[in-house]
């Protein structure tokens, strides 16, 4: 649980298009790392290389290395399916399976990972995941109802519960609050602070206050220029990035003097 991620000299391609160039960073366990930067600079692209979702796009590929503790995620013979089982992901738009009940949504990953789990055991795991996602009290009386019947914020917490039910080592979140109202956002930010006790969390956000509130480390991505690939400008402790960043571009971006 809660593993360290080490990225070394990562170039990310969509076919021949180099989207992100030369990223190296270390992501600490039991912490929240926020990735910020202007639209199109490759934050989502980078995030999706961490659990090998990137290569689902036809002809997409990466150069470079990513280690999770000592495992080379892109090593020969590594099955991306196994990588994704250890690294959970929450998406920008809540995406519970609409035809599944709330219970089955949370249990979906368990059924993939561990086909022969006893019902009572499964019940426990589902309850624990929903409690961790701060959703249990709201849904405990309607676990059999479809997940798509919940509010947007509840659906997003359901997706978080689904992701953590399988006890991943790392949790990736791509703008998890951008489709939510302030109250639901608050609920999910609180949740992140609780979850980082157990997981390594990486979150992409456009909301600078959010990055400042929830993260321990912040990485700033930027485009190297118009039509050029994106890059990691710097990554440092969040307090440092938001007070005295070492790069001019970072300072311009966080103070709103961008471009």
């Amino acid at each position, binding site marked *: 649980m809660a593993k360290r991620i080490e990225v070394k000299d990562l170039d990310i391609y969509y076919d021949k298009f180099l989207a992100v160039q030369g990223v190296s960073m270390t992501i600490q366990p039991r912490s929240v790392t926020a990735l910020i930067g202007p639209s199109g600079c490759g934050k989502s692209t980078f995030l999706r290389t961490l659990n090998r*979702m990137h290569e689902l796009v036809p002809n997409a590929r990466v150069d470079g290395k990513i280690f999770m503790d000592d495992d080379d995620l892109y090593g020969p013979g590594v099955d991306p399916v196994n990588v994704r089982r250890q690294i959970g992901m929450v998406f920008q738009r809540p995406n519970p399976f609409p035809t599944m009940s709330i219970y089955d949504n949370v249990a979906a990953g368990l059924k993939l990972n561990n086909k022969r789990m006893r019902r009572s055991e499964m019940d426990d795991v589902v309850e624990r995941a929903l409690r961790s996602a701060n959703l249990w009290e709201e849904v405990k009386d309607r676990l059999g109802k479809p997940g798509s019947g919940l509010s947007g914020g509840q659906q997003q917490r359901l997706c978080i519960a689904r992701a953590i039910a399988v006890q991943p080592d790392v949790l990736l979140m791509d703008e998890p609050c951008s489709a939510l109202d302030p109250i639901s956002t608050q609920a999910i930010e609180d949740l992140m602070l609780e979850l980082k006790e157990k997981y390594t969390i990486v979150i992409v956000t456009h909301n600078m206050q959010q990055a400042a509130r929830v993260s321990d480390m912040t990485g700033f991505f930027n485009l190297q220029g118009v039509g050029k690939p994106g890059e990691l400008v710097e990554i440092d402790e969040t307090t440092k990035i938001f007070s005295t960043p070492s790069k001019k571009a970072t300072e311009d971006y966080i103070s709103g003097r961008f471009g």
Partner: protein
Amino acid sequence: MPPSTDRPQAQKVPLRPGDRIFSGASTGAGVLILVVLAGVAAFLIVEAWPSLTAPAEDIPGGKGVAVYVWPLLFGTLISAIFALLIASPLAVAIALFITYYSPRRIAQALGYLIDLLAAVPSIIYGLWGFTVLAPLTVEPANWLSENLGFIPLFAGPPSATGRTMLVAIIVLAVMILPIITAVVREAFRQTPRLHEEASLALGATRWEMIRMAALPFGRSSIVGASMLGLGRALGETMAVAIVLSVSGGVTFNLISSANPSTIAANIALQFPESSGVAVNTLIASGLVLFAITLAVNMAARAVINRRKEFSGAN
């Protein structure tokens, strides 16, 4: 007009000429279709009526309309349903292969190929079934009756010509494959990327992703498409008329030479030589077919439309 009732009307958006023409044309077309349907139904009922009131001896076969129509109805249903049982799993498999497994080039080629199957006239299928497929099934049918003869479907004795219900079923299955594949494939193509990614991010393999995202999403389309295919198979005439060697009789035995005909094929074969009440009887059987296909098609459309609720929701 008194002003009090006039006010709400005045707030209505004025209808633009284009809107008016379009809505008029589409309403007109809808009404026209209903009128045609009603006309067909009325014609069938009026023309079938004499056979329903005629004494049983006057009906071909001499035992009344119900006894005449029943084996035909049975043959129609059994051929269509078995064809569906073959075609729909195959169609789903092909649609899945095209959507999720094959390289894009092959997928396109295969898609065209399947669509081409729909363009082949049914008489050609009939000739193919009669001259190519039927002889090919003689050996396998022998084997089936020897080794699996305890299953009523393969009880035998196997036909020497191969012009059996089994061949009719296979021909029908090939004929309805394109429509089912097309509808199901379209449904899979629309599986929300969001749900596919949700399952893949949980560590689903491609097949698990299909089970978690694609199949549940496409389920009602699969049902609807199958029913469309069923509707086709029920009404298919020429292919069955050519392939099937008919002797009447109600049997589940698919490989013998004693087969029930189907309503449509029977009408095509008997109509030229019929007169008087015999014609009315044929039309009565047509009325039964009309009612069944109409119901099946309407149910299919209803099922396909119902999934619209899903697509918008998330």
